[in-house]
């Protein structure tokens, strides 16, 4: 069995004495799509943000690809500096609920920014790659637009292209469709689906239960900072073993 591409062990995180993650472990294989479900405050977004260290964990080990950092008191751990954190993050791509495109740059410049500034790629190569990625998300004709001229769905597709430009080992989606008008959700989900078909490793925090069932290989249900249940969608979503999972899913089945 090949080694998992992401390995998270005994992750702990507290905010002002409120334990948001209590000893969470999980691993993700290359090409696997994982959906993180759970009520708000369950810690799923914090877990996602700990994977690219936007939130720095208090304890535990995070490994993505070759890079591994151990946090908290104990052997082999130290508080990582700016350089270590940055190089770790360059290996992961993140897509945010609020898109967070750079408004002072065109769509093309947004997608080129990571490779240019972080990877020091030359401009012509960065441009060629960026245009190819924009074509892939169906926005080649919007390359010279500024973000504010785009719809929410288009913005999010640019954000996906921007993250992909770094050629990350994993893509992290933090409620990527929650801020979108309902009619625009589909175009973003289609892009995510095509990435899954290409074998991109992905972790999605989502409230789109139907989409999770459709695209995820593994579903993780969290509550109160712990993993309650994990497994294939046919089990966790269709036939959950735990009462907490059933109670959560019943809110969606009503609608």
């Amino acid at each position, binding site marked *: 069995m090949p080694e998992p591409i992401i390995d998270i062990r005994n992750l702990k995180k507290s905010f002002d004495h409120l334990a948001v993650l209590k000893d969470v472990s999980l691993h993700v294989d290359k090409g696997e799509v994982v959906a993180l479900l759970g009520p708000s405050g369950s810690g799923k977004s914090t877990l996602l943000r700990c994977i*690219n260290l*936007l939130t720095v964990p208090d304890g535990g080990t995070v490994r993505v690809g070759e890079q591994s950092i151990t946090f908290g008191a104990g052997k082999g751990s130290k508080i990582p500096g*700016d*350089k270590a*954190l*940055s*190089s*770790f*993050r*360059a*290996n*992961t*791509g*993140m897509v*945010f609920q*609020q898109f*967070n*495109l*750079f*408004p*002072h740059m*065109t769509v093309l410049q947004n997608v080129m*920014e*990571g490779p240019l*500034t*972080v990877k020091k790629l030359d401009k012509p190569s960065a441009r060629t790659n960026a245009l190819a990625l924009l074509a892939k998300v169906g926005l080649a004709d919007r390359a010279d*637009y*500024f973000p*504010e*001229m785009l719809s929410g769905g288009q913005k999010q597709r640019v*954000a996906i292209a*921007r*993250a992909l430009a*770094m050629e990350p080992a994993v893509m992290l989606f933090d409620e990527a469709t929650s801020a979108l008008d309902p009619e625009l959700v589909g175009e973003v989900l289609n892009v995510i689906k095509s990435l899954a078909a290409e074998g991109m490793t992905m972790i999605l925090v989502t409230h789109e239960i139907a989409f999770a069932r459709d695209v995820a290989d593994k579903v993780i249900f969290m509550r109160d900072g712990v993993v309650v249940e994990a497994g294939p969608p046919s089990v966790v979503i269709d036939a959950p073993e735990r009462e907490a999972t059933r109670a959560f899913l019943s809110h969606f089945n009503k609608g």
Partner: protein
Amino acid sequence: MSGYVWDFSVILEYKSLLLTGLGYTLLYTVICVLLGLLIGVVSALPRLSSKWWVSAPFRAYVEVFRCTPVLVQLVWFYYALPVLTGIQISAMTAAVLCLSLYGGAFYSEILRGGIISMDPGQTEAARALGMRRHQVMWRVILPQAFKRMVPPLVNQSIMQLKNTSLLSVLALPDLLYQGQVIAHDSYRPLEVYSVIAIAYFVVLLPATMLAKRLEQRLNKKAGA
């Protein structure tokens, strides 16, 4: 006042004195704006630090200069500082030092305010790409924050120019000081001070209009 006969012809006799004064006013303004901006940048960045012992000294500097009148500072720098340090400084040095530090305190606040008013999502997106802290600042935060800072920075620089009129208390030959000299000499203070006021206005009005256009251009560049 009804019997007063205005006579602006005397002003022409003192033309060269007035122009020298205007020249000094502009020179002091340029020096104090540039030095002030430099001090502003240097003191704004450490104030963003999460470590209190880094930000505290710069906060103290800003508050001391914001919360005392600039005229008091000017007199203190010229008369008290040399006694305290044992180092004699010229009126010019005291004036430039004081006005630059005074302006710098306000610039510092404008810069810091502009930076912290940015959406934290911008920093997060840049960090998520793997950018280093300084790259986030220069590539993402400052270009956007600068646009918001332009109007208050221009306002503060206009204040800097007007504050140079206080240098006359240290007998530096700025526009107002020359005006005082001419007024004593010509016995025509009403005309002299009217002309001085107009001179300040004529210099500053185009400056504000230029700033307005710069602001519009920056807005357009960002696709607004």
